[in-house]
């Protein structure tokens, strides 16, 4: 039997660039999964996309699915006639098809059901129709009077099975669109139908009809031409993989054109040029490596023209100039406002609501300024600078440039604050204080930036806690989880100690939360706010540390310790504990600790007393017992000063060193001695183990 290849093309109006690659992958997966499930295996498959088509080629498929034989067990041979008839009806068989067999349970009827294989075309038609009807587009639409949904109107389906004898169209029809063996070339350069015989024929004819089928081939060609053209002028293209992928999805026949940016605009900050060109025009920026300035642009057209792109380039240049004229207008207006002390912007923030229960942006700025000043010493920043930076950090939100390009917020603040002649550290805080925006975003490190960044996030967390707008489930409209992670990362990655409870209590007060006096019942409720917020931050910390391979029970063991509002301390403890538990001694110490703790707890329950002090070596009866006394003395002498110095690594390795003497003790010694004095002494000894270990972390919470 000949081994057929399958070629599918779904030809539509322009598919959004960002969806193409994923869609090609989905087409491949859905069709191949469907074929395999129906018994149609294949040798290889590949999928491609252009703005107007998704293409799938499958090589070495079976011509038909194999015939399968299924055996079904029926009723007993002497079962009532009705039962046998029911079985036959269900299996679609007659009595002659049944076979009687002796089994340990007596004579039983068996049926053989043969399912004949089905021709590939039939299976392909079914699978493809299902695929089209259930395609996972991020957004799809209807058109005309139809009910079919596709990303944009679907115009034709090419679906052929190719054997040595030739190509055969798979007969199928989806909402009036009949499968055929034709496609279209480039919309403008090669209009008209193209008849296709197989995949090689398809790619060759498409290439001739000005369509490069493979997106990565288009991207490579664009990058190659762009860098060459820039290089020839002594310039370099600013890399942007996202833009390259997008542009490759906007063209079937890429033609790279490089143009000049008008001299008038070269004084704009490079980020402004880059953002404007990328966001509005999908241009690449071309930089002069000597000056760092963006001097040219690269645009990618979708066609060749008789004038070698001159009209296209001139048009693009004109659009760019209009855009940049806007940007320049904003920049110059903004610089005037900045040089006048930004008062217009700061005033404008009074009219912008931050949140209807949390006041205006200006109120936010006031709170940030107070808090930034308060925490400045703890993060090594000058309090005056921290306050000033916080006061200016949000000013650019009222600028024209940020209104036009919201993604430039912060960065423009930095430019404008620098232009005012403020200290660079103050200017930098405007840009840095939003960070980190995601788990992989860098955290600010400059002290003034750190103070403002922390102030912004702590204010946000406490504010939304004060008005009881906490994240629930998947809903976190104010990005409070991100704010909490930001606080964690800034403190931990900069190795900073901050009394988070104190900072949040003072900001909660700023948000109007009244802590009252100690006897006021509301006081307790309000205290809960602080505890609840800390618990939320601890939850984020667990996620943060889990991503670094630290188990949740280890984190719990550390959160249970005092000073758990010092996140940096908490993380150091957790890391040290995690490392310790990875060692052989550490892992076994936990077993020893648990054994000691269990015996002790049982004895305390049975005796109704707490064994805590008074273990005395003079009552020791064995060497192992005496050795444990000595080991505990040594460990304690190391652990106590190490804990005071917050040197958890030393403390924990000293603790892990107890493993051998504890193990030896349990092997040699029976704690529950008949001698009451000896027993009490041993229990008090176990209590020392517990005390020493629990001073390091709450090991009772460690699992396993």
């Amino acid at each position, binding site marked *: 039997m000949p081994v057929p290849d399958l070629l599918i093309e779904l030809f539509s109006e*322009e598919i959004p660039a960002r969806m193409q690659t994923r869609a090609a992958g989905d087409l491949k997966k859905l069709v191949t999964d469907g074929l395999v499930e129906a018994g149609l295996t294949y040798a290889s498959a590949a999928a491609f996309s252009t703005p107007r088509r998704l293409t799938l080629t499958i090589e070495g498929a079976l011509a038909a699915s194999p015939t399968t034989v299924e055996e079904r067990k029926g009723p007993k041979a002497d079962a009532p006639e009705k039962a046998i008839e029911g079985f036959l009806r269900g299996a679609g068989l007659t009595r002659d098809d049944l076979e009687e067999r002796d089994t340990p349970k007596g004579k039983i009827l068996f049926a053989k059901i043969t399912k004949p294989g089905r021709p590939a075309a039939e299976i392909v038609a079914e699978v493809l129709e299902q695929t089209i009807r259930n395609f996972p587009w991020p957004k*799809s639409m209807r058109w*005309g009077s139809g009910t079919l949904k596709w990303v944009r109107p679907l115009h034709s389906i090419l679906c052929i099975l190719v054997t040595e004898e030739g190509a055969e169209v798979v007969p199928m029809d989806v909402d009036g669109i009949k499968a055929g063996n034709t496609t279209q070339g480039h919309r*403008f350069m090669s209009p008209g139908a193209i008849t296709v015989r197989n995949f090689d024929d398809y790619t060759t004819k498409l290439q001739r009809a000005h369509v490069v089928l493979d997106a990565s081939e288009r991207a490579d060609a664009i990058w190659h031409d762009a860098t060459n053209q820039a290089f020839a002028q002594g310039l370099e293209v600013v890399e942007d993989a996202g833009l390259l992928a997008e542009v490759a999805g906007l063209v079937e026949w890429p033609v790279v054109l490089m143009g000049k940016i008008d001299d008038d605009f070269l004084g704009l900050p490079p980020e402004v040029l880059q953002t404007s060109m990328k966001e509005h025009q999908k241009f690449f920026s071309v930089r002069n490596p000597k000056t760092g300035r963006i001097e040219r642009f690269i645009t990618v057209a979708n066609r060749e023209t008789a004038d070698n792109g001159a009209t296209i*380039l001139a048009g693009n240049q*004109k659009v760019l100039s*209009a855009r940049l004229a806007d940007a320049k207008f904003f920049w110059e207006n903004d610089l005037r406002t900045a040089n006048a002390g930004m008062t217009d912007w700061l005033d404008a923030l009074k009219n912008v*609501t931050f949140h209807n229960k949390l006041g205006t942006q200006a109120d936010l700025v006031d709170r940030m300024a107070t808090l930034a000043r308060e925490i400045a010493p703890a993060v090594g920043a000058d309090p005056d600078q921290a306050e000033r930076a916080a006061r200016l950090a949000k000013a650019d939100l009222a600028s024209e440039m940020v209104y036009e390009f919201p993604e430039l917020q912060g960065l423009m603040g930095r430019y404008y604050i620098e232009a005012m002649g403020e200290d660079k550290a103050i200017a930098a805080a405007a840009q840095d204080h939003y960070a980190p925006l995601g788990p992989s975003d860098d955290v600010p490190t400059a002290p003034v930036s750190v103070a403002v960044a922390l102030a912004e996030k702590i204010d946000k967390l406490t504010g939304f806690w004060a008005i009881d707008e906490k994240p629930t489930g998947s809903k976190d409209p104010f990005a409070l989880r991100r704010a909490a992670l930001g606080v964690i990362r800034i403190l931990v990655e900069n190795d900073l100690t901050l009394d988070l409870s104190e900072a949040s209590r003072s900001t909660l007060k700023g948000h109007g939360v009244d802590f009252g006096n100690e006897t006021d019942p509301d006081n307790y409720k309000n205290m809960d706010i602080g505890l609840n917020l800390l618990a939320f931050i601890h939850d984020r910390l667990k996620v943060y540390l889990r991503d670094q391979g630290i188990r949740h029970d280890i984190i719990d063991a550390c959160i249970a310790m005092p000073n758990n509002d010092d996140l940096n301390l908490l993380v150091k403890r957790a890391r040290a504990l995690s490392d310790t538990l990875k060692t052989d001694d550490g892992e076994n110490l936990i077993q020893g600790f648990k054994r000691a703790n269990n015996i002790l707890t049982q004895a305390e329950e049975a005796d109704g007393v707490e064994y805590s002090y008074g273990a005395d070596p003079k009552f020791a009866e064995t060497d192992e017992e005496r050795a444990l006394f000595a080991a505990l003395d040594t460990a304690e002498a190391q652990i106590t000063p190490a804990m005071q110095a917050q040197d958890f690594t030393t403390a924990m390795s000293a603790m892990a060193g107890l493993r051998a003497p504890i193990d030896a003790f349990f092997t040699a010694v029976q704690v529950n001695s008949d001698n009451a004095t000896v027993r009490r002494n041993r229990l008090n000894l176990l209590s020392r183990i517990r005390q020493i270990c629990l001073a390091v972390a709450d090991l009772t919470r460690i699992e396993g």
Partner: protein
Amino acid sequence: MSDTSTAPRSFQEIILRLQTYWASKGCAILQPYDMEVGAGTFHPATTLRSLGAQPWAAAYVQPSRRPTDGRYGENPNRLQHYYQYQVLIKPSPPDLQELYLGSLQAIGIDASLHDIRFVEDDWESPTLGAWGLGWEVWCDGMEVSQFTYFQQVGGHDCSPVSGELTYGLERLAMYVLAVDHVMDMPFNDPQSPIPLTYGDVFKQTEEEYARWNFDVANTEVLLRHFEEAEAECKAILDQRHDDPKTGKRIVMAHPAYDQAIKASHIFNLLDARGVISVTERQAYIGRVRALTKACADAFVQTRAGGWTPEAVA
């Protein structure tokens, strides 16, 4: 009048060629709606007529106002009053893209020299409670049109789907006529006995309106007008469908919709005056949406919107 083998010479010739082209493709050439709107989509020939199953094909020019875009006539591209050309065909024909490209050819854009692209742009109008999928059409990197397949309007699924084309006329004409500043663009034929530029017609009005929009418009009066338009819209829709005077069934979808349009424009003016905060903005948009949605609900209760006595029975 308009020989499409030559390049157009004026703003008005481009409009006339579009009118002729779309008339030749079977569209009813309507006139602008006689109210202030932010875009051609607000014309009831688009919003309301995209609802229901009745076939429809219309094209028209719509003067549009965006108070915040005023630049006293100084910016080469930005205007607070400008023109849109709007085409709506229901159901969307399978060759709508080709029809559209034909219209570019008609106004002198030679596809063999230019780079014409369909770039993803999902359209959504929060005030109309409407959305659709489509593209912005680029000519040499410039957006020359919006191309949308309406999926929902006024909260109603569009079935059949309308295809909507919107041309920003000034921008498109400046491009075709190779003019850098909108005010320099010839409005009529430069060879006319009295040649007029766009600036001759609109420079002064742009100044006047920019000053009024930004600094003078009485916000208290506007706020009151907004409330009144909202109340009137609701009051109209609260009327019984049966008119006690004529005894006929008269659902007043259009008069109510006029009030919704009015509220929407007043909101835009208040926005330009800078008296609407970010949070209030959402609330106002929500109020306008509630009105347009109620008007859409009313329109589908009319004959043009697909209501029939039989359907009720």
